[in-house]
């Protein structure tokens, strides 16, 4: 039987705005399955995003949804979680949103280790504004503002998250749809800041310019470049050249979670 996504989608809100072949829809389905698996009460779940194609996702889902300003999702979400720690808080957004304009909020949310799940859709580009390069556009690639090839080095989002102090960091791709919900489930179950980077695709503004003839070509690239942590353990550095790791990259269950820390502040202030 086909999976029932309908019950999680707000009536009348489809069709979505995404182009045919856009990876963001695959991520949305993964997120729905993960929320179902975790039996998240949608009334008690805030889904927060910034601005971008990826950030339009919350509007389709039946929950408390907050579509904020470009880059600011993690900061809004921090306010929600602090004020009501009993709520489940999920952030979603793009690579530009989360690591360029919102990079500061991203690393500080990681540092605090505040309990939320951040699903970051990395399509290597600013999709919504027409394909300008982002901090994740591979060096040398073409974007509407890198007509001679991108001179910028990239951010490795997962490494950035680990370095900043997130306590659960995982990565997968839109070409591995079943792994998306598995990792989001682990992220939701993890008490602390969970980053799930999903490398997806923007055929319209990135694929076209970078000589991918079809979405299938883009998916093939994701499949060949992705190597699971397990498989990578048996590979040489040479074999890993040009690949990226997928699966759970890092987990720390010792570091205190931020709202728990603040609950201790309240106890102290109240003389308990």
């Amino acid at each position: 039987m086909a999976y029932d996504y309908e019950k999680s989608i707000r009536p009348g809100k489809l069709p979505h705005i995404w182009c045919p072949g856009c990876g963001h829809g695959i991520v949305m389905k993964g997120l729905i399955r993960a929320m179902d698996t975790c039996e998240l009460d949608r009334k008690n779940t805030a889904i927060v995003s910034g601005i971008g194609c990826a950030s339009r996702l919350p509007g389709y889902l039946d929950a408390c949804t907050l579509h904020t300003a470009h880059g600011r999702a993690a900061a809004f979400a921090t306010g929600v979680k602090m004020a009501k720690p009993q709520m489940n808080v999920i952030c979603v957004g793009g690579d530009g949103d989360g690591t360029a304009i919102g990079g500061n909020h991203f690393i500080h949310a990681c540092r605090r280790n505040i309990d939320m799940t951040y699903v970051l859709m990395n399509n290597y580009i600013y999709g919504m504004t027409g394909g300008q390069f982002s901090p994740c556009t591979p060096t040398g690639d073409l974007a509407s503002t890198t007509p001679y090839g991108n001179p910028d080095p990239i951010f490795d989002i997962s490494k950035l998250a680990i370095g900043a102090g997130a306590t659960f960091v995982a990565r997968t791709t839109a070409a591995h749809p079943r792994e998306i919900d598995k990792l989001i489930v682990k992220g939701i179950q993890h008490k602390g800041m969970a980053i799930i980077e999903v490398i997806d695709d923007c055929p319209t503004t990135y694929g076209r310019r970078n000589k991918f003839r079809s979405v299938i070509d883009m998916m093939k690239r994701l499949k060949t470049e992705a190597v699971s942590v397990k498989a990578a353990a048996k590979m040489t550095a040479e074999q890993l050249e040009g690949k990226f790791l997928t699966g759970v990259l890092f987990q720390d269950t010792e570091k205190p979670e931020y709202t728990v820390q603040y609950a201790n502040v309240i106890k102290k202030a109240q003389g308990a």
Partner: protein
Amino acid sequence: MAKKVALLQGNEACAQGALYAGCKFFGGYPITPSTEVAEVLSVELPKVGGKFIQMEDEIAAMASVIGASLTGAKAITATSGPGVSLKQELIGYACIAEVPCVIINVMRGGPSTGMPTGPGQSDVMQAMWGTHGDHAAIALVPDSCQEIFSETVRAFNLAEKYRMPVQVLYDEIVGHMRERIEFPEPGELEVIDREAPSVSPEDYKPYDSTKGQVPPLAAFGSDYKYHVTGLNKADDGFPTTKASLVDAEERRQIDKVMDNIADIESYEEYLTEDADVVIWAYGSTSRSARYAVNELRKEGIKAGLFRPITLWPFPAKRTAELAEQAKAIVVAEMNLGQMVLEVERVAKGNCVVVHEGRVDGDPLNPGQIMDKVKEVL
């Protein structure tokens, strides 16, 4: 029973006013001369089960305040100068998404880093026009520590009642001045909470204005699920580009303030009944102006003071009346000519309007204002 009294700094009075109003969340980023508001709330909020968070910058602080408010908490941030500039985009977000919150601006000189420890009144036009797009604004300008307390309470009330950001602007002089404060008893000052929806979760529309200009706001994490966005939206909260819906919503958000000026307006007049010259001044400058009025009266000059406490919406009606009555209005403010533009606009040439300003970090003194009055008469 005698009232509780204390010697409080303006910034401390602000924090105490916030607590009186039932504030449960502060998100901020340190900046002189506003830091004491944060420091007091970091001590006091957890005592009442509230939350204090120091964010990574003022944009994040504003974002956290809006997020917290959506869960139903009364929320505040405090900042100055550059921090106010950083908050502008999200002040606009709070306007369009209609999220109650209070922003304290302890004004210093500028632009840019300017004079961090010196007073200024040069953010008053920014309070109205700082964020992009058409919108209404409410800004309050107390002139004493006691009034900072009560205006902070009123700021929360207006924010909750009209579902919007409300700014309280006071300059560094009032922010750092210490004065005796009488703490109002609980219930003595009105405390307003936002209206909760009465319809069922299924029927709830976050911008449904059929029952009034200010739609009830449900809390995240209650029984109501809804969508909030900074895009132009229809009454159900979802984005729309339909011209008629966009237009109606934009206008309603301005009308909800402009149709209720009588409720929002607040000003004080001192010896204006027979005044030939009205000094139009707010915040610490109005204290110099009051002194100047007394001195001028001794010299036989019929001077009076008009002191707006609500600066935005602009007190147009009363200012226009005074322009018809007086020979001149002297607008005294610690800037090089901001509110004077509004006064000129509504005076419509019915009297002479002149400006007396200063931006060197020293307060506008009574002598300076008196000289200007004599020059214009």
